[in-house]
């Protein structure tokens, strides 16, 4: 399956993913059978109890961890079983990440944090700098681009992280509770920004959140329960 000859290309395809961790008390089966397809520009939300394995799932979908079994493809390209270096180069081009705790490099300014992501993806600073400035302006930080993360508020840090996730024009953004560390109003702002940016850039989004309001704004709502993904209808929630 190649990304070019399909009319609605699948950005992400996961087939019967399972993950178990080795623990002193025997294996812990976090994911048992996860099947998920995300098409271009689509927004999917995932909810689930704490400890249900949402972060683990996002990490596997993003290639940061490996499934115990199952198949994973990005843009129609099989990636399970490939080397870490291969996954890294693909990740830089296809994927954007947003984390609950921002994960900015503390030694770099807002602008440099955004540029770093582009440079890791192999672009030159010259080409990227205007783009990074523009993205930072779009998240409302044009006046704070030279500030270090320690000089920014949580909401501002997450805005920088949004700009960073978008700098390489990814096909898919994986967001793991992006508003988890923020107060309600700031969370609302960030979520609106994330959804708008994803829509306007045509980027698919997999959003993990505890907040049902946010989750409902997605085109597809899924729940992670007992290691499997199920849709809202099956669980009776809405």
């Amino acid at each position, binding site marked *: 399956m190649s990304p070019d000859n399909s009319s609605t290309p699948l950005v992400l395809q996961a087939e019967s993913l399972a993950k178990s961790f080795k623990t002193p008390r025997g294996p812990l089966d976090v994911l048992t059978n996860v099947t998920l397809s995300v098409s271009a520009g689509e927004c999917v939300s995932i909810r689930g109890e704490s400890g249900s394995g949402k*972060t*683990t799932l996002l*990490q596997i979908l*993003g290639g*940061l*961890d490996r499934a115990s079994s199952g198949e994973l493809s990005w843009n129609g390209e099989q990636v399970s079983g490939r080397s*870490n*270096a291969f996954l*890294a*180069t*693909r*990740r*830089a*081009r296809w*994927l954007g*990440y947003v*984390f609950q705790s921002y*994960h900015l*490099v*503390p*030694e*770099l*300014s807002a602008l*440099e944090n955004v540029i*770093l*992501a582009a*440079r*890791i*993806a192999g672009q030159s600073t010259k080409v990227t700098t205007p783009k990074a400035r523009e993205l930072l302006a779009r998240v409302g930080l044009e006046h704070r681009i030279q500030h*270090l993360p320690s000089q920014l508020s949580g909401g501002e840090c997450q805005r920088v992280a949004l700009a*960073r996730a978008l700098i390489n024009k990814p096909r898919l953004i994986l967001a793991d509770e992006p508003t988890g560390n923020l107060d309600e109003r700031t969370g609302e702002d960030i979520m609106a920004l994330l959804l708008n940016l994803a829509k306007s850039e045509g980027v698919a989004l997999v959003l993990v959140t505890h907040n049902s309001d946010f989750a409902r704004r997605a085109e597809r709502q899924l729940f992670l329960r007992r290691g499997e993904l199920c849709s809202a209808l099956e669980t009776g929630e809405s």
Partner: protein
Amino acid sequence: MWPFFLARKQLFPPRRFPVFAFISILGVACGVTALLVVQTVMNSFGEEHRIRIREADGEVTLHTSNKFIPDVSKVEVGIAALPGVKAVSPYINNVLVVIGESEDDIRFFGTRGIDIDKEPTVTPLAKYIEYGSLNDLDDDRIIIGKRLAIRLGVRIGSRITVQSPYEIAHSIKGEKIKLPRELEICGFFSTGFADADENTSFVTMRTARDLFGMPPDSASAIHLTLRDPAQAESFAEELNRRLPLNMFAEPWTEARRAFLDAIGMEKQMLFLLMFIITLVASFSIGSTLFSHVVRRTREIGLISALGGAPSKILQVFMTQGFLIGILGYGIGLGLTFLILHFRQQIVTLMGAEATLLKQYRFETVPLHYDSNDFIKAAVLTIVLMTLASLIPSIWAARRKPSEAMRDVT
């Protein structure tokens, strides 16, 4: 090259004093300084000794296994015509006896018959003469070492009665012997080598031939200097192939092999010692580096998430070790030059001037740089620092990104 950019930023974070970089770089700089100062001082002393040996002996000496070299002026001309030869001078080496007031007061010392015109072209004798001058030397006069003068209890203008062991041998056989010769002391020299100053004297070639019963135009040896002193060994080797069996050429390095080996050995042992010290230092810097890397576990996870390949993560941290090595070496180099520039003042402050003069006969602390020392130290520190960062870097690069991101330290 983003790994370099990130490495630089992590080593020198903006708007914050770079404690980690400061301590590591200073540590390396101190190690480099210690290594280079010790090596250069050792090198300077060795080189100074070598220069003095060359000055005293010439660069290559032609010896004979016979009593003397006959028709020496012909040999001289032949040698002087060889390519690479700068100056040639014959000399006579032997021992003299001074018989004092009482019969059992007999003192031996070496004497060297020299050609007053040619000798200064090979050995800078005039440089070492403290009283009188080489020009005062004639067939009835002698120049002696300063310490020998003290031993003999003589001063300028004193006369000493000398005899050669050759005459004594004749007298034992009951043959008719020449009367002892009376020589006037016309100069003192001081080379700084106690041995030479206590046991050597200079007379003219003619006086020496007369004393030791040698025919005209003969000498015991010929020494020479070369246009390129470094060629001494190969020149001697080449010459030996052409010389008759009863003559051989010896380079200065061979003549003083034992002494030169001792100096070389000393330098090597000190290098080994300093190397161990540097190694110990690099272990401590290695452990600092390790905690520096461990503190950045979450960033390592992040870089992975952004698509940084493991090899690039390795680069980020190895570059930091490399930078510490390079900067530490650079600062160490500066400190080394600074310390060596003020070497005289430092020795004075330490009160070691007297020892230097007495034990080494150096009026000032000599300074001879050896570029090899600097290259060795540079390679050593930069490689060691990069290696010290290699282990934490490999650790970082192999870290599973999912676990690195969950890290809470």
